[in-house]
């Protein structure tokens, strides 16, 4: 039926056809006219059944509980779970992206093997589908062979965003039973170990902190991107709405960063600091707190006679000061702080003296106050010192374990695993030659990173160099180091030599070098547990419940690992047969809730599945008026002894918050040798000029932004279109440059530019932004993928990692992503 190409005709037609209700395509012409099937016109669909399942968002580490809406087998909506303590029914901008991730047309559809032996960016892997049995048998055969040869250490499992006991939690056991020190190696050094380890140096705990923001009256933030990236982002914003819009008194906020972002814009005071100098600012703040007598005496201690003797430039007699919960304050003052005046810090940081003074006075005189920091402050060669200087501020104002302060996170009451791995260890597992092998990343080794937790960024380069040895087989879970490691080009060469197994549900740069693809489910298809990242301290763990059966022939990574384990010779296979599958593991974890039901009534597997979360308030420890107390069921009524504080709160050799770090002092020989720091001061928070490699004249900082959906955002069109609202980057991400800096180099606003470091060059488009420091260029780490999918491919700017030098903090092992200097020129 051909209709007249006029709107009037169409409307008449629709009126008629809706009465007739006839089916059949209508042949409208192109152009402005609407083409509707008759049956589509004016039909209002009303009857359908929607099912809601519980899950946890996957787009960042925060672990927001989500309700997943499925109608007629299609997932179409995601909202925060109202009864979930982190999400509270809300979502950050990344939360709704889950539907796109599930139905990403570029997903791997099943297990595959490589047919092209040549590996490279321009080599088609020639992946062909295989069965799961063939895939798992292939892996097991390699692993059994290595073990037979006494070379099981040459198998590595490297992982990024592990979630819980049913995935990443299974890996360590696998390594112990199989016999490899390299199973598993996490990505924490490429994440934020600089934060964890600089805190460990002082408080002995070694974990990310939990924070009680809602009761704080001042927040001092160093490079955390509180309103862009800091976890739990969704809850941070909920708290922000409360502390800035509801709470009386309104919480004061000072934010320190290297460019103007939404966090700085929303704060009372924005400090645009020179990259890598956050520690200098923190030292000056400490100086002012002491000279002006603003420290928290019940926590820190005081001069015997109450007379403040902290005077700029003057030493203090340690005998005159009685310390309470800190150790080494007077040493810190005499060796470092006495000269760290605001005027000195102004020179180092490029900030104004008046701003440093005002910040210090406000922080020192407002209780409770929290100093928080992440990668912006510590991803530099001096990172551990910056981190220690900032964290020490929390001690000076008595915020540790205080109401409105910060604390450590408690774990969930999980039940034991179905069987004990210790009963399944053969002689090889207990005494095999692998026992004497160092880790491939030289973590914990004096030639490498003695004090680090992980050194994933060293793994590729070390294997390539054969130092300490060459790997044979490497398996990846939730990590894509060719793209995420600095100078990932080295990883490309390293992976050419190895048998590579990737388990991502999606194509990526590392997957393109894989010999086997064993694709995981996407998160909305998984049954997976995930204890909380540090949140508010009290224990919390949650569950992903599949919204729909897997769309493709994929397998949950935890089950892939168990199935491989079943195929390893010896008692190891019996262990994995006894585990059965991840659902059995999760059911056993949930048995722990029977004895310790959650506040929401979750007491077993079924109720956990229904509510999606188990948690138990309140937090057990509280510092108040000079004492540490424990929860007695009704109040913080149990006074803790010094020994209890040492065992549970400050896990240092002194049982105190060590401003003079005993842990660093124990390793003074090694630290002095590897860092060149002097033995007199290497154990205290002090200023050290950061080393900026790369050979350029501008700092390059590549932050995570709000729309960065971990591992997948670059291939989601909706995320791409909203990635960079400040500069209007809707199909590209602009490189921020201060107009003055650009004009000096003859670079026009919007021009295509080339960034160059000693490693090479990348291109992209720049935009003028007065909120960017003139000595720094900024752009989000997001685009530049060449193998992630159709939308990611070739999108500018090219990848910052290719010009980021692989330099790490020698103490924390933190990969210094934000410290390379580059040059910029118009193309």
């Amino acid at each position: 039926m051909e209709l007249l190409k006029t709107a009037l005709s169409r409307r008449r037609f629709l009126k008629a056809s809706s009465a007739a209700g006839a089916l059949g395509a209508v042949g409208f012409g192109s152009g402005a006219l609407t083409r509707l099937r008759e049956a589509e016109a004016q039909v209002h669909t009303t009857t359908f059944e929607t099912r809601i399942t519980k899950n946890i968002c996957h787009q960042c580490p925060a672990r927001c509980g989500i309700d997943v809406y499925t109608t007629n087998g299609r997932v179409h909506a995601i909202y925060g779970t109202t009864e979930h303590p982190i999400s509270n029914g809300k979502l950050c901008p990344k939360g709704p992206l889950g539907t796109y991730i599930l139905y990403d047309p570029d997903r791997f559809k099943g297990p595959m093997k490589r047919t092209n032996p040549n590996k490279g960016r321009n080599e088609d892997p020639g992946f062909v589908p295989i069965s799961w049995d063939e895939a798992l048998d292939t892996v097991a055969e390699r692993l059994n062979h290595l073990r037979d040869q006494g070379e099981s250490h040459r198998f590595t499992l490297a992982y990024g965003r592990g979630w819980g006991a049913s995935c990443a939690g299974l890996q360590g056991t696998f390594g112990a039973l199989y016999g490899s020190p390299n199973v598993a190696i996490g990505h924490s050094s490429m994440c934020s170990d600089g934060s964890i380890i600089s805190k460990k140096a002082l408080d002995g705990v070694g974990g990310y902190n939990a924070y009680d923001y809602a009761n704080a009256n001042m927040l001092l933030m160093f490079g955390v991107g509180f309103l862009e990236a800091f976890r739990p982002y969704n809850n941070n914003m909920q708290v922000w709405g409360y502390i800035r819009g509801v709470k009386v008194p309104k919480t004061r906020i000072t934010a320190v960063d290297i460019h103007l972002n939404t966090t700085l814009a929303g704060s009372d005071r924005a400090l645009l600091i020179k990259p890598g100098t956050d520690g200098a600012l923190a030292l000056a703040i400490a100086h002012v707190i002491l000279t002006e007598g603003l420290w928290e005496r019940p926590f820190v201690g005081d001069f015997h006679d109450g007379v403040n003797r902290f005077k700029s430039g003057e030493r203090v007699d340690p005998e005159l000061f009685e310390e309470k919960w800190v150790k080494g304050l007077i040493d810190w003052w005499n060796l470092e702080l006495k000269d760290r005046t605001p005027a000195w810090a102004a020179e180092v940081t490029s900030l104004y003296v008046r701003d440093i003074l005002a910040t210090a006075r406000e922080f020192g005189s407002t209780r409770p106050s929290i100093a928080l920091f992440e990668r912006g402050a510590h991803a530099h060669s001096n990172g551990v010192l910056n981190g220690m200087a900032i964290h020490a501020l929390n001690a000076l104002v008595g915020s540790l374990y205080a109401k409105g302060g910060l604390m450590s996170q408690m774990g969930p009451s999980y039940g034991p695993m179905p069987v004990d791995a210790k009963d399944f260890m053969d002689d090889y597992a207990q005494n095999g030659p692998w026992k004497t092998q160092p880790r491939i990343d030289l973590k914990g080794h004096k030639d490498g990173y003695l004090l680090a937790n992980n050194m994933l960024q060293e793994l590729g380069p070390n294997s390539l160099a054969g130092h300490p040895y060459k790997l044979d087989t490497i398996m990846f879970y939730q990590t894509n180091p060719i793209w995420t490691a600095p100078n990932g080009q080295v990883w490309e060469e390293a992976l050419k030599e190895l048998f590579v197994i990737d388990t991502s549900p999606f194509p990526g740069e590392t997957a393109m070098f894989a010999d086997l693809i064993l694709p995981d489910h996407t998160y909305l298809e998984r049954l997976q547990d995930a204890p909380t990242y540090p949140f508010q301290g009290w224990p919390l763990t949650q569950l992903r419940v599949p919204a729909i059966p897997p769309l493709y022939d994929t397998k949950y990574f935890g089950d892939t690992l168990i199935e491989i384990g079943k195929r390893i010779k010896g008692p190891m296979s019996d262990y994995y047969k006894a585990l059965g599958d991840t659902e059995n593991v999760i059911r056993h974890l949930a048995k722990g809730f029977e004895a310790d039901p959650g506040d929401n009534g979750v007491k077993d597997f079924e109720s956990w599945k229904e509510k999606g979360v188990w948690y138990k308030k309140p937090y057990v420890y509280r510092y108040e008026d000079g004492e540490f107390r424990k929860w007695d069921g009704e109040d913080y009524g149990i006074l803790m002894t010094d020994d209890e504080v040492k065992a549970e709160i400050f896990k240092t050799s002194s049982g105190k918050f060590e401003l003079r770090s005993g842990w660093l002092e124990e390793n003074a020989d090694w630290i002095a040798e590897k860092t060149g720091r002097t033995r007199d001061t290497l154990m205290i928070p002090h200023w050290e000029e950061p080393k900026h490699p790369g050979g350029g004249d501008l700092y390059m900082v590549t932050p995570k932004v709000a729309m960065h959906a971990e591992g997948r955002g670059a291939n989601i069109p909706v995320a791409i279109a909203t990635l960079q609202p400040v500069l209007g980057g809707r199909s590209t991400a602009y490189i921020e440059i201060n107009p003055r800096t650009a004009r000096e180099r003859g670079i026009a606003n919007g021009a295509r530019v080339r960034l160059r470091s000693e490693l090479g060059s990348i291109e992209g488009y720049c935009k003028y932004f007065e909120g960017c420091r003139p000595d720094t260029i900024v752009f989000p780490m997001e685009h530049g993928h060449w193998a992630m999918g159709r939308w990611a491919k070739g999108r500018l700017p090219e990848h910052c990692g290719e010009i980021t030098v692989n330099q790490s903090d020698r103490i924390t092992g933190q990969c210094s992503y934000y410290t390379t200097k580059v040059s910029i020129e118009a193309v």
Partner: protein
Amino acid sequence: MAKWGMVIDLDKCTGCQACTTACTMENNRLPGENWQDVLFYHEGTYPNVKLMWFPRPCMHCENASCVSVCPTKATYKDPDGGFVLMDYNKCIGCKYCQVACPYGVRFYVDERAIVQPDIRGVFPSDTDRVWDPPYKGPHDDPARGIGIQPHGVVSKCTFCYHKVSKAPKGVPDLDEDIPALKEYVPACVRVCPPKARFFGDLDQPNSRVNRLIADNRGVRLKDHTGNKPQVYYLSGGATASVPSLRSSRASGQA
């Protein structure tokens, strides 16, 4: 007969764009077809630079310019609830409404896609809609502009009519924190992490939205146009304020 309105507290908004992506998900919008957008501005010279943002849904005006100019009555004011809606069956794609709207909240997508390759080619429709993604929601009511539009029409925010219109009668406010009401709350309001958004009945004097407007000096955008938006903005507690058509002197126009 409710008159639904929205209040956005600019002191609490963090500029995160959760409203934008939740709307895009709930209403099956194309990348960049941001019915609910957040606009960013900056001014000043380093180091004293001001960065601002402004969340902007359709204002669902009482005297909507778009409704006045529409030659086919495709866009109309629903008397029951006060929604400004689109009838895709009547729209001829002339875009007068886009030009007439003072707020820039109307969209025409039959153009080159912002993000290439065009997702419409990846998920084509076999029923002559603009596209048909597998994650499409179940609600489809072309006479109210709900569901994926056909080609050649203008689209716009519906105030999540498919949710709000099912709310229990007489409810003064749709608060997402009340479990029994959350499914009736517009997507942008429901997800807003800092709780910068409130949704309720402007015709009920004691609704929370009216209280917020009164207590916190709610203002409407471009009030001088006489469009009389049903979206109010709160920004700061100062009593000094720009006179608006809501003040008693102008109330004769209501």
